[in-house]
């Protein structure tokens, strides 16, 4: 009996530890996304860099899209994708929503909106996840709100004080609202980026319509490294 039970127990332990690894793996993957702000350090004035900036993000996204379609349809085995959750078995993975959000922000939004929204998805989202796991849902949203507030204040610090405060408040509320989305077809990794971005865009359009320039100077400048 012992001979049978020992391997079962050992396998169970391994599977439990894999669960936990997948948990941290997803968190690290999220945080890794913050590196994409390097996009703004790459100068548009050099032709080959401008070309890569234009085509690399969309190419990677397209590749991921076809990979996910193949996985959902069973053409590629799901076992090749580490750390997927049960609800992603018959739906495209969250990472595709995450990447789509980043690409949309990089292509269609000004840096002052895109950078804090990307940071919200990459850092505030896993922080909220950990806080929810340790303290509870309400506390997680409160912590998430404060973390997002910090990101918006840091990226809008060059704006007028009232603009910075309103923008930071709108952005943080939008990020927490986006994170609370609970639909299987629409992922929170997408909404946490696009909700604050759209709210801020509306705020900017409204303020500019009143004749006030609200958009501050960007905080990341193209690098002067010898490309």
């Amino acid at each position: 009996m012992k001979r049978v039970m020992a391997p079962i127990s050992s396998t169970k332990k391994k599977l439990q530890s894999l669960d936990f690894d997948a948990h941290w793996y997803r968190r690290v993957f999220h945080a890794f996304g913050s590196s994409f702000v390097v996009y703004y350090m790459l100068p548009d004035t050099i032709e080959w860099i401008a070309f890569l900036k234009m085509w690399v993000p969309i190419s990677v996204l397209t590749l991921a899209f076809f990979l996910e379609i193949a996985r959902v349809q069973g053409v590629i085995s799901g076992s090749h994708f580490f750390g997927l959750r049960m609800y992603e078995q018959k739906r495209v993975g969250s990472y595709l929503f995450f990447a789509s959000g980043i690409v949309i922000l990089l292509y269609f939004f000004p840096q002052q909106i895109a950078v804090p929204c990307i940071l919200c998805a990459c850092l505030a989202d896993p922080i909220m996840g950990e806080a929810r796991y340790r303290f509870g849902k309400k506390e997680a949203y409160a912590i998430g709100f404060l973390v997002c507030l910090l990101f918006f204040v840091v990226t809008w610090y060059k704006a007028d004080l009232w603009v910075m405060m309103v923008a930071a408040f709108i952005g943080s509320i939008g990020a927490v609202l986006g994170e609370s989305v609970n639909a299987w077809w629409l992922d929170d990794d997408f909404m946490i980026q696009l909700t604050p971005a759209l709210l801020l865009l509306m705020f900017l359009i409204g303020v500019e319509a009143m004749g006030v320039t609200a958009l501050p100077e960007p905080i990341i400048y193209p690098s002067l490294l010898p490309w």
Partner: protein
Amino acid sequence: MNTTKMEYIKSNLESKKLLRTELLFTPMLILVPSLVSIFLINDWYVRGFMQGNAAFDGELMLGIIIFIGNMLFDIPFLRFLVKKRRVTE
């Protein structure tokens, strides 16, 4: 979303094979954000601090946020990865 849906898909592959996927991406997942934050802080130092230009202070703050934000998750991840390797070896 209920708890079952939030659970991870368990594979029938041996745990060593799954571990390989993690190990393959680990250097990239850890090094790239660190490099980006160093890149930002260096740019602040060279064009901002050295030339007394405060316009680059945002790059310093962003660099620190990216570095600390990543370390917050990298350290527990690496700790469990090392622990797991010891278990499987």
